[in-house]
């Protein structure tokens, strides 16, 4: 049995930018935030200043329910850096609000991963400042 688990402290820590500070602040408070264009509702792949669709400059932060479905995944056995514990499962999750999230799946075995698998966000701190949003099967 190989349960996929969150990474321990000691892995490389993301450095927030002026555009993403609010996202990481939300994560620290266990809130999954994303940006939506106030004018047309478009959602980008990350925080933005100009809407790629309607070119409005009025993105607003929204809170996701944290529920979504597995869209793509891999199971890593040779990490880029020895501080990562293997195996782990980087994944693209499609949130129910339509957001594409890059994350990792935990709380199940690699063999359980499948297209469309229902997932819910789970927060795990990796430093004082940074908490990562992982995804697990609901209730696990």
């Amino acid at each position, binding site marked *: 049995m190989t349960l996929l688990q969150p990474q321990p402290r000691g892995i490389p820590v*993301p450095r927030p930018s002026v555009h*993403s500070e609010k996202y990481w602040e939300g994560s620290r408070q266990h809130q999954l935030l994303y940006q939506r264009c106030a004018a047309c509702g478009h959602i980008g792949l990350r925080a933005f200043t100009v809407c790629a669709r309607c070119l409005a400059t009025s993105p607003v932060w929204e809170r996701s329910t944290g529920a979504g479905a597995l869209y*793509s995944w891999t199971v*890593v056995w040779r990490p880029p850096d020895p501080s990562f514990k293997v195996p782990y499962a980087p994944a693209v999750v499609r949130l129910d609000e339509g957001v594409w999230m890059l994350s990792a799946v935990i709380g199940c075995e690699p063999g359980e991963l499948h297209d469309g698998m229902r997932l819910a966000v789970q927060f795990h701190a990796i430093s004082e400042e940074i908490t990562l949003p992982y995804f697990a099967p609901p209730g696990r």
Partner: protein
Amino acid sequence: MPPHPFRNVAVVGVHNTAQARHLAGHDSASIALLGALGALADAGISPHDVDGVVGPASAEIALELGLGPCTRRPSALGIPSVLDAAALIATGQCDVVVVAAGGAGIHIDPSTTAPWTRPTNELVVGFGLFTAAEFALMARRHMLTYGTTPEQLAAVAATIRTNGHVNPEAVYYGRGPFSVDDILASRMIADPFHLLDCATTSEGGCGIVLVSAERTIDSPSPLWILGGASDSFGPAYAVAPVWDFRPQPDADTAGRVGARAARRAFSMAGLTPADVDVAELYDPFSFEVIRQLETFGFCGDGEGGSFVEDGNIGPNGSLPVTTDGGTMSFSHPGINAQQLQRVVRAAQQLRGSCLTNQVEEAEVSLCSNGGAGALFCDVILLGRERP
């Protein structure tokens, strides 16, 4: 019809330096310099006739060879740097341009994957993403959508690695031959990629010399740029690699990055995929070759797996691919040189000068760079006939 934009641009020299796991005494700039000098020697042109240098080490090479005042363009990657060099000549800014790239002294900590494979962008670094995982996330969607199999991915790796096995200039010369079962038996790195589905790392340099057409009188076999273009959806390894991502409702998807570039390159050349005799495709991971074959129009969407399984990409197939062994076996010296090396190999094929896997009477070659996992893809078509 207006004249072809690169009618007055000829490729007259190419060179690969020695390639090895480690080249003692070199850094990226010094091995790129050797690539430039080798390409100039191959062209029979004195370094002091150069009036333009293109590539990440362009300024260092200009100083080292005493070329100033000259044009320098720090263009990264392979195909874009060749197209930039061609544009310098086509627009009359330069007459003799050397494009050079190299990588050495970068990957020195064996406990980690190579530095260029693990960017520290904020949305990817905490989840342990690296290039193999990024490309795996794209490959997975293709497997789910079209039923592409690990055996089909392995067929690509076995073909390209065996091309390197027979090439005395390849870093992994003599390590094969490789079967599909050999690839599948290697340890898993990032599912579906086994170790042998992935590029290697090594050190080396290379160079290419381009001149204005008037100077080709000295060249026994000038080659020509028939077409070229580039596609990008954004920064590599900074956001989720989403196969179905469309920036606009009517845009092509990120999974098909390179489709527009190929269409434009073929249009500039007045050719179709059926005219290509040999494809020197960029092979960072086995799946990427299957994707490019579909994206460039050599087969239909979802047909790439059976195309490679049927033997089409072998040295005696209908479309020989990555005939020197590519990044999986020939060499992979970092970010730039192995991209430019696809163009070096295409030139060797068209001249008929390959030591191994020479495609008889090759007239047209397509080369590519990049891939879906990195959200960019470049295409160039070289030929023996002046456009």
